[in-house]
């Protein structure tokens, strides 16, 4: 993330916090509807160990589901790309899985898998699987004719072609999918916790609503936002490290290296 973007993000947070604090002091809404920011922060600090423990559970579920979606999405995309006949049979079932609303079947999955983390991981996986699959598949398919011919002229075929040509070519798209999928996975984990759990941030939100404990509610929401941001930017940083050659970074790089390009 460039420094100017970071600065703008911080500026937004500061302004948002100020508006919140000033509005609650001036308008005095009931505490259970909107507590002032300082009392939310005070609650956060007092309860940070509890928050952290629950956040850890949700993060664990999210990352397991996301990791499975990355592996599964790439693997299925590979099969769909490589074996057109299998693809003909497999596509309808993939599409069927996608049009099934994952949130609607969450209670069913809990019934089947129980109240432990397995059901949450599965929901996180199902909800983040599709963006990875679609992007990876588009990436594998979008390699141009000349590159394919170049590979064949070198006698490169099969798995070697996939590893050396198709996969690196598809990486930028896979990362686009991953940026979307990571926050989908978080939503999946929280929804799973809503439906039934004894731990995790989703569980805390349900608890806070039942107890009308709005500082807990807002603390949890802030924790979820922080976690979402952390995940999203981690994927972005990993992407930069993995594919520094990609076209989307040229502009930022070039700004710092004027005079690099010559005739």
């Amino acid at each position, binding site marked *: 993330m460039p420094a100017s973007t970071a600065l703008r993000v911080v500026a937004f947070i500061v302004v948002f916090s100020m508006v919140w604090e000033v509005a609650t002091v001036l308008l005095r809404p009931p505490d259970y509807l909107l507590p002032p920011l300082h009392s939310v922060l005070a609650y956060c600090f007092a309860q940070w160990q509890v928050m952290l423990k629950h956040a850890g559970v949700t993060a664990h579920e999210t990352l397991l589901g996301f990791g499975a979606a990355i592996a599964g999405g790439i693997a299925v995309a590979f099969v769909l790309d490589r074996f057109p006949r299998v693809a003909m049979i497999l596509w309808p079932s993939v599409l069927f899985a996608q049009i099934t609303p994952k949130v609607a079947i969450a209670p069913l999955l809990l019934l089947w898998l129980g109240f432990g983390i397995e059901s949450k991981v599965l929901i996180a996986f199902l909800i983040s699987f599709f963006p990875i699959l679609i992007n990876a598949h588009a990436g594998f398919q979008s390699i141009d004719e*000349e*590159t394919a*011919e170049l590979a064949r*002229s*070198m*006698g490169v075929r099969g798995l070697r072609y996939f590893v050396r040509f198709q996969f*690196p*070519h598809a990486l930028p798209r896979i990362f686009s999918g991953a940026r979307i999928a990571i926050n989908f996975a978080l939503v999946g984990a929280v929804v799973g916790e809503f439906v039934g759990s004894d731990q995790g941030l989703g569980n805390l939100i349900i608890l806070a609503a039942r107890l009308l404990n709005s500082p807990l509610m807002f603390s949890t929401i802030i924790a979820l936002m922080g976690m979402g941001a952390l995940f999203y930017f981690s994927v972005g940083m990993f992407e930069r490290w993995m594919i520094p*050659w990609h076209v989307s970074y040229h502009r930022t790089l070039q700004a710092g290296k004027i005079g690099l*390009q010559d005739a």
Partner: protein
Amino acid sequence: MTGPAKPILTIAGVQQRFATRSGEIVAALDNINLEIAAGEFVAFVGISGCGKTTLLKIVGGLTMPTQGDVIYKGERVTGPVKDLGIVFQKPVLLEWRTVLANVTLQTSMRDLGGAAEQRCLAEELLDRVGLAGYGDRYPWELSGGQQQRVSLCRALVHKPGLLLMDEPFGALDALTREPLQRDLERMWLTQKPTVLFVTHDVGEAVCLADRVVVLAGKPGSVVANIRVGVGRARGADLLNNPQLQAYAKEVRSVLLPQEAKTGAVLTMTG
């Protein structure tokens, strides 16, 4: 047809037809017969759509002809030719590999020599096309002409017996093209691969080639086979070489009536 004494490459009765989406059968090449000697530089000229690129792919074994045979080094071509180098109109560099790694791609995919040896060969070639010190850069950091030079190095680093070039300088401006033509001639004189060079630029064809094959018509067939009897190195200097200019005129005179004919057909049908 003036065949060379001992051809390394024989194209015998090659025809290519393909089906369009509407199911119509279209002929791209019609009864092509050619013999090419080892180390010969042959240019193919013709207006677009006469099947030049298709012929190149068939010779390299990247496409199979509908009919006819290609014999290379005494063997019928049934798949990609083993010692093949290929240059496209676009540089076709892998954007995730550095310049050096793009050149060594050829040798590493073919498992030729150790990493250090491959690196050494690639650096030597890059040096010869004026790209010394560019090895660690990524393709996007290079201009179009530089990228095409890298592509040329990649096609030559394994010392191919057969080099196929499909309008390699077609996308470059004239000032960038000339030095590249000189580089190509120099490198060809050093390594002496058999070159099949497709272009629609008559001047480029006579400057580079030992022989210019004119393809015309739909489907494409050979309408002229012109040997360019000018010594080497010619240095891509068409402007100051009356001999080359005479050959260019000859090639053009064969090409132009064909263009006129196609034009007439188009007016009639359209």
